[in-house]
Structures are given as C-alpha cells and as structure tokens.
C-alpha cells in the first residue's frame, strides 16, 4: 500500500459487497471498444446535422472546437484551467465500475483537450509531446465517440474539482462536434427527431395518448371509487403538466402519474396534459445542441399559450427538470403570460410539498408499510437544479414528501447522496441496450450503497424522481439481487398513501363485507 495513495475508503470493505466508492485498479482499454449505435441519416438530418461522416470532417471538427470555445465560456475556461491535480479521478461511477482510466473525468476531458491544445495553444502547436497534445485523426474521432458516450453528464466530477470543471460540458461539446461532422448517436438523435415530429420521445400520437389516459382514468375509478381525471388538451385549465412520456406507459412511471393526478384532484386545481408538448425530456441537452434544446423547449411555450394555462408543472424527470429549472426561461422565456405568483416552472414535488404544508392532503402512511424505503437523488436534479426557495431544497423536499407518506425511510451513505449522489448509470443518453455492460458497471456504486442500507436497515425499495433512473434501475437491479420492481416513483408512494375525499379504501370494503 502506497502511503500517499488515497483514502481510508479503500480498506473499508463492508460485508461481501465492498464500499460503494472503492477505487479500482486501472484497466487500460477495458471499455475502448464499447460503441453505441451510430445515427442513420434519417435521425441526423431532421436535427440539422449531416447524415453521415462528411469528407472534410477534420477541418470542420477543428473549426467547431474554436467556435464552441468562443460561444461558451465554460468550454473555454475548462479547456484551459485544469491543473491535472487528480482530485476528480476517482469521482466518476463509470471509472469506479469499469476501471478504464479514460473514464476518469480528467482523462475524458483530455481526449478533447489534447486536440484543442494541438490546434489552439502555443505550447501544443510547438511542443505537442510536452503538453500531451495530439493531432485529430480518425482514431481520435472514434475514441471521442466511444468515450463521450460513456459519460452520463452527471456532474459529480464538477462538485469535486477545485475549479468546478464540469466534464458534462466537455461531453456535450464533444457530442455537438461529432454531430456537426455527421457522427451522431442513434439513441439520442432518433428520439429528438421523434419529439420534433410527434411531440414525445415515444412517437405516441394524440389519439393513442388519449386512449391511454382514458384507460388510466378507468383504473383510478376502479381503485378509488371516485372519478379522478387525467385531462388532455383542455383549454383554460390552470396547470399544464409536462411529464416524461415514460409516465404514460412504463412501470413504475405510470404509478407516479396516477399520484400526480390524485394530488391535483385533492388540491382541487384544474390541469391538463398537452398532446403537442407531451414530453418533459429534452435530449437536446445530451447532445449539447442549444438550437435543438431550444426548439423542443419552444413546444412547451406554445402549448402553454395555446391552452391558455396559468402555470406549468413538471413531472418526475431528472434531466428534464434541469432543462426546465435552469434553462427553460432562457430557451423559451420570458413567461410573462403565466401567473407570476408561482414558480415558473414548478416541480410536481414542490406542488405536492406545498399542499402537504397547507394540510390539504390526507395520508394513511401505513399503506406503504410493506416498503422500507431509501431515496436515490437523480444527478441532474441534485447538481443542476433546485426545488423550493433555498439551496438544497432539491434534497429536502423529496425526502420531506417521502417521510410524509412512508413510515420507514433510511438514507444511503452520505458520500453517495445529495450533491455527491452517484448516477444510476443510464443517464445522459446512454439508456440503450447496446450499452448494457457499461450501464451495469456504472450502476454498481449506487447498488453497493443500496446493499449497505439493505444490510443495515433492511431497506427493500428505492424511490426515484427520474424517468431514466427508474427505467435503468428496473433493468439493472435484478443483476444485483433485487426484484425489478424495487424502484418506485416518489408519487407512487404518495398515490398509495393518499386518501381522497369519498374514496373507498380497502378497510371500508372489508368493513362493508363484515
């Protein structure tokens, strides 16, 4: 053991699973060949990118680096400021899970920085060997493609860098450069093209959406005995709900949607979903494209104007909340036509939390007693947004809501939650089957932290407020010894516990039977 090497953590191996942040030995090249599917021309072109690799890709890519550096201060400063101190090297869940040194944040940045230095700095132009500068070659371009699609843009590294260098910004820029030369990624670009065409990531048309919502209304009536609405395209409603389209079809997402509906019902507000803007997700962020992100955001503005709503509320989605909270005002504002007495936009948890504080919601917490809960802070919510008035509200509000509806709640290791949360492993445009190996390895720090609270407190389930996290966990949890339904929506727990006025409960029914 080298005396100057890191962290007591290394030796602190608990049980059979190990510490969640245990640092692996370097495994050079371990993930070098993992390549997500490339986009086809039909996916690239609607986004304004060339269909396939252009002939003069090298010149265009180099010019694009300069253009981005002149348009984005973060990119420029981050390329220059890194001192290679190494503080970030053990902060990425993909490095922790794979041991591939190119998944260390600073090494990931260097894939691009080395080229920036070669063409844009004195030292790199004249003494490339001295500062690790290198020519842009086809191998480098391919390496960019592979490793910039092994970053979930979770910003954990940024928290721990003395200058706040955010590898997510570098990844986004790299993906934009790749897109500009026709090397888009299929998963992201296909989805953005669908949103532009139909209004959501799934390509669910308004008719299908209406049918889905009507089915869900029937389910709700069956469950509660009262009519709880899931309105679509209702002009003049107070609130426009923008939610990830996974909430319309995937488990456990749907249960969360039912929870929002019950809360709105109990709060007595009128609300609607829009078929035109039936998607909270905005993958424009993942590919670093301001223009695409803006175009998708403007659909929300248009829907709000067309429906004449007063407020916009976002459902449970991580990166969507970052785009909504941090960027929507920039991309699609100003929202002077909305009611200024409410935050614009508002998170569904802010809404529910406010109703809990007002005392309008009635809960029977014991209905969640079958669960022993913990909570996974989604990266984009934790490190790229806020809820409520105070910094850190994004940590406190979800926990306050969970504690209001569950009796058994336990946090995971402090180094893996809140601003230090470890990514689910599937964010940032990586939630695609061909990356399953990376997703599983990237999830291991989170899974180990969960295993700890399972051992220490008997935790059985984990709640999340992100559509990607939920899908990712239901896929990878079985690989770590949990059932696939061990991940729950926060509003699913709200939905379980809430008792609506006039609602028949299981207790009523059994009493009636007696």
């Amino acid at each position, binding site marked *: 053991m080298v005396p100057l090497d890191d962290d007591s953590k290394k030796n602190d191996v608990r049980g059979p699973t190990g510490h969640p942040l245990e640092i692996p030995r370097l495994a050079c090249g371990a993930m070098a060949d993992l390549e997500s599917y490339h986009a086809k021309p039909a996916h690239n072109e609607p986004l304004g990118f060339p269909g396939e690799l252009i002939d003069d890709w090298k010149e265009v890519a180099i010019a694009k680096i300069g253009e981005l550096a002149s348009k984005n201060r973060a990119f420029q400063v981050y390329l220059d400021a890194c001192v290679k101190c190494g503080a970030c090297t053990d902060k990425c869940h993909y490095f922790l899970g794979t041991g591939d040194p190119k998944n260390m944040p600073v090494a990931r940045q260097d894939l691009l920085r080395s080229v920036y230095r070669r063409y844009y700095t004195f030292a790199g132009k004249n003494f490339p060997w001295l500062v690790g500068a290198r020519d842009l070659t086809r191998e480098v371009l391919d390496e960019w493609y592979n490793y910039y699609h092994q970053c979930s843009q979770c910003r954990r590294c940024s928290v721990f860098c*003395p*200058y706040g260098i955010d590898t997510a910004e570098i990844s986004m820029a790299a993906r934009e450069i790749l897109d500009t030369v026709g090397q888009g990624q299929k998963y992201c670009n296909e989805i953005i093209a669908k949103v532009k065409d139909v209004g959501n990531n799934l390509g669910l048309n308004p008719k299908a959406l209406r049918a889905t919502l009507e089915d869900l209304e029937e389910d709700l009536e069956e469950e509660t005995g009262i009519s709880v609405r899931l309105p679509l395209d209702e002009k003049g409603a107070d609130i426009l709900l923008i939610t990830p389209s996974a909430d319309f079809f995937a488990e456990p997402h749907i249960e969360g949607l039912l929870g929002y509906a019950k809360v709105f019902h109990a709060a007595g507000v009128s609300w609607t979903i829009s078929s035109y803007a039936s998607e909270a997700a905005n993958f424009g962020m993942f590919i670093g494209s301001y223009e695409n992100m803006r175009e998708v955001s403007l659909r929300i503005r248009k829907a709000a104007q067309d429906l004449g709503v007063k407020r916009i509320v976002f459902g449970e989605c991580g990166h969507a909340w970052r785009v909504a909270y941090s960027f929507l005002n*920039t991309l699609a504002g100003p929202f002077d036509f909305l009611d200024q007495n409410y935050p614009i936009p508002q998170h569904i948890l802010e809404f529910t939390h406010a109703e809990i504080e007002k005392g309008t919601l009635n809960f029977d917490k014991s209905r969640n007693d079958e669960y022993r809960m913990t909570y996974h802070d989604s990266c984009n919510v934790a490190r790229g947004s806020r809820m409520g008035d105070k910094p850190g509200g994004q940590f406190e509000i979800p926990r306050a809501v969970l504690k209001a509806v569950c009796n058994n709640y336990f946090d995971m290791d402090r180094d893996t939650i809140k*601003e230090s949360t470890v990514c689910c492993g599937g964010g940032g445009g990586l939630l695609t089957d061909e990356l399953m190996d990376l997703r599983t390895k990237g999830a291991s720090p989170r899974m180990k932290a969960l295993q700890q609270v399972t051992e220490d407190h008997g935790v059985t389930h984990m709640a999340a407020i992100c559509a990607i996290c939920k899908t990712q966990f239901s896929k990878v949890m079985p690989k770590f010894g949990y059932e696939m339904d061990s991940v729950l929506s926060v509003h699913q727990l709200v939905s379980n516990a809430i008792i609506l006025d006039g609602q028949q409960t299981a207790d009523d029914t059994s009493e009636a039977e007696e």
Partner: protein
Amino acid sequence: MLSTLYALLFYTASVLMVVGLALKIRKYARTPAPLKIPTTPAPTTRGGVVLRMAREVVFFESLFKSNKWIWLFGYLFHVGLLLVLLRHFRYFTNPVWWWVELIQPFGVYASFAMVAGLAGLWARRFLVERIRYISSPSDHLMLALLLAIGLSGMTMKFAAQTDIVAVKVFFLGLMRFQINELPMHLPLLVHLGLVAILMIIFPISKLLHVPGLFFSPSRNQVDNSRDKRHLAPWAAELEK
C-alpha cells in the same frame, strides 16, 4: 553584460506575463455563458457567490471535500508560495512596508512548507497510479520548475548567501529603468532565470487556473434562473 541580459529578460518576462494574462482574461470575460450552469446547491444571491468563491480561493473548499492528500500538499504549497511572494516585496520597496516586515519571520518557514507541498504533489504523480496516468511531461516540469525556484531561493537564504543589498539595488533600478550591477552569484542567477521562465509561461500553461477559477460558470453563477432570464447575445439573435 550579464546584468543587462537579466534586466532585458525581466522586462520581457513582465510584459509577456502581463499582456498575456490580460488577453486571456479579456477572452474569458468576453466569452458568453449561454446557459445557467452553477453546480448546485449554489447561492441564490451575488453575495452568496462572492462567499462561495472566497471559500474556494482561501480554503480550496471543493478540493478539501474531494481529496485530503491533494488538499494538504496543495494547500501547503500555495500558502507557502503566497507568504514567500509577499516576503519578496522587501526587494522592491524602500522603505519596506510594515506588513512585509511583519510576515518576514513566517516567510522563512513558508519556503519549507512550499517545498514540502511541491514534493508531496510530485510524489503523487509517481506513486498514485491514476495521477501517473494523467500526468504529461509538462505537469512534471512545472513542479520541477517551482521546486527549483524554491530550492535555489533557500540556498541563498540558508547556505550560500548572496549580496541581498546589491540585488535590491538592481530591482529598484529596474523599476526606474536603470540597469545596476547584479551580483554574479550562481544560485541567484539560477533563481532569477527560472522565475523569469515561470513568468513567461504563466499565460500559456496550466497556471491559467488562477484566472480560470474566477471565470468558472459552475462556481461563479447565481442560482436564480427561474427569477431572472439569462440570455447570451448570440442566443438572443436566434429569437429575432
């Protein structure tokens, strides 16, 4: 002859450093930040941001949370460097400012802290696999340069004393555009030559972390995106 050479070297180095840094700072200041990207939780007011930045600059707060070893060595080095630099004002001021006199005794120990910190940082570049992997020759050379500056300086202090009075006359002269005799003393010539190199590479090396820290959007932005619309000039063009 050598005195003239060193005088010219210091004039050149000063101009390159000042102009180079000014150009870089201008570039950073003029490059717009299109989106609000503070790493949250972040302060919601300007005053809060000033405090956050102050904690980063004075305590290396994020680094402390990140890695205690790097923090320890980095902090020893930087605090040592700061005190040593402040102590050097005595060679440029006549009479010497009172607060420079005041830190004089600490300045002597500071050089040990600085050298120890640098040695620790350098050792990590060899011993810790991850940091070895990310180090380029320039990362080693930068530490070697600073260490050599520190050690040559300490040589003059603790071993082969140089004619300090003459050195001071030389630098006070430079400030009035006169060239006086510099003592022909090897450790001094090495020390000064390396310092000039450091000044020259300042604006074209990773020493840009000094201005960079102040321009980092993830640290210097206010978390108020819902209340105040933020729009870069080039983005405003898209709305036309």
